[in-house]
């Protein structure tokens, strides 16, 4: 099977006053046409991994890897100009909060057609037609009206769906979703996820789903990587999450309050410093 993405020994480092801080420490995984979840607490390096793939880490941050290949072709050696052809067109990323990721002084429709026109040579009217089609695909009612709205006029869930439309319109091969639903309500969350799931499946894309919500990831992805302190401590098939071996994963699962299994006290995660020093598991 040919992989969409191959990563071996990825490191992300930031120089600080107290020496070099390693945000990601030797992460290896490969991605096919599947849904891969990355879970961890804040500061575990999950978002940094996503950003490193798109080479979005700015100097003085450093990214090194033995291998960072998109369909067998190296990404690290590419120039900024070549990277611009990759971002959006081949790998796109959905950020956490639509409020901060949409341009507040540009109509949402224009933003979507701009994303399309950057990667495809089409006329303005054709881009508009395609954008409205895309808005319809993300289950927005009355897409013609929404096309002419500004980001502050749409709700959070709608904003996130607009982001998804914008990211999918150049038809990328891989989508990285960085906590796409954590700014949304539970009831809207499922709706946005369903839309994302359907579109990813229909187009045969690879998805990297970054989240801190274990239950969400296990119900939505095929495979899960669990990150701790910049390393992958465990990798599991999503439906086998409850069979997790690593104490960190078990601790995370047990610290969740459960609707169906109430208990008086929640288990608190006991951190073992040795977890941070174990070698990273490759997936």
């Amino acid at each position: 099977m040919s992989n969409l993405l191959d990563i071996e020994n990825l490191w992300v480092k930031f120089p600080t006053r107290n020496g070099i801080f390693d945000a990601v420490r030797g992460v290896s995984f490969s991605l096919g046409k599947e849904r891969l979840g990355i879970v961890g607490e804040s500061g575990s390096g999950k978002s940094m991994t996503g950003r490193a793939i798109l080479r979005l880490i700015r100097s003085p941050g450093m990214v090194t890897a033995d291998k960072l290949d998109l369909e067998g072709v190296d990404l690290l050696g590419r120039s900024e100009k070549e990277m611009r052809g990759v971002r959006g067109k081949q790998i796109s990323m959905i950020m956490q909060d639509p409020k901060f990721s949409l341009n507040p002084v540009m109509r949402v429709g224009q933003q979507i057609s701009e994303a399309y026109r950057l990667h495809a040579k089409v006329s303005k009217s054709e881009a508009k037609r395609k954008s409205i089609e895309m808005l319809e695909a993300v289950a927005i009612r009355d897409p013609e009206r929404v096309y002419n709205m500004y980001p502050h006029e749409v709700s959070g869930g709608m904003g996130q769906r607009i982001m998804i439309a914008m990211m999918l319109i150049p038809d990328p091969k891989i989508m990285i979703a960085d906590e796409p639903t954590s700014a949304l309500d539970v009831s809207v969350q499922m709706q946005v996820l369903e839309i994302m799931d359907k579109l990813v499946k229909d187009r045969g894309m690879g998805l990297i789903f970054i989240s801190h919500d274990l239950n969400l990831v296990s119900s939505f992805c095929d495979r899960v990587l669990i990150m701790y302190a910049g390393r992958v401590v465990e990798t599991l098939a999503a439906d086998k999450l409850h069979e997790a071996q690593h104490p960190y994963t078990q601790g995370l699962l047990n610290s969740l309050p459960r609707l169906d299994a109430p208990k008086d006290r929640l288990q608190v995660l006991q951190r073992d410093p040795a977890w941070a020093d174990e070698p990273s598991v490759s997936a």
Partner: protein
Amino acid sequence: MSEILIEDLNVWFGEYEERVDAVKGASLSVSKGGSFGLVGESGSGKSTILRAIMGLAPTWDGRMEVSGEPLGPKRSRTFYRKVQMVFQDPYASLHPRHSVDQVLSETLSLHGFKDIDTRITKLLDDVGLGPSFRFRYPHQLSGGQRQRVAIARALAPEPEVLLLDEPTSALDVSVQAEILNLLTDLRDEHSLTYLMVSHDLAVVGHICSDIAVMQLGEIVETLTIDDMRAMRTQHSYTKHLLESSLLGAKLA
């Protein structure tokens, strides 16, 4: 008798054609030492009810009572001692240039306490922070530690009622467990009454014994946690909420 009693509460913002009714005819009651949860999606008015009790929403009508004291447009000094609020975002609710010591001593002196020094040590101890945290600034604390400071600040005037506005939604699940345990411990120790807002049904289910489900400013259903767990709901919206939050839990 009920510690918090709300009858037919309306809260609105703006006037004439710009008027938005945030809460419409809400009624609820929380018994002393009990815990009540308000759930619903954003914009359903659950936080507004807390703000109305606190006196942070000036335009309201209806009847509100806290431990037998009817609330008017002006609240007494004892009310502000008795009722305290913990806000959602620990990053935004602490003054960035006040140390933990300043935050707590200001609250204590405003409420006329004399033995401030010993009280601060006791408060920090209560929320599981050692004395070493006393002279730190918010940026030197993690999210969970900040929320502990915010809880210590709320506990400072020895309140009887705590209003909790999504106290753990900005925190990691592992830290959330610590804060939820802390809240249940404190409730037993100080015999507090909680009114809690959250969009996470599992969190509300852990802390509270009764919940009210809100939609578009109205309380559509009030039910006990046992009923909720057994899916004994009348209203379709409650069912929808429960289904979307149980979906993930079932798989784990």
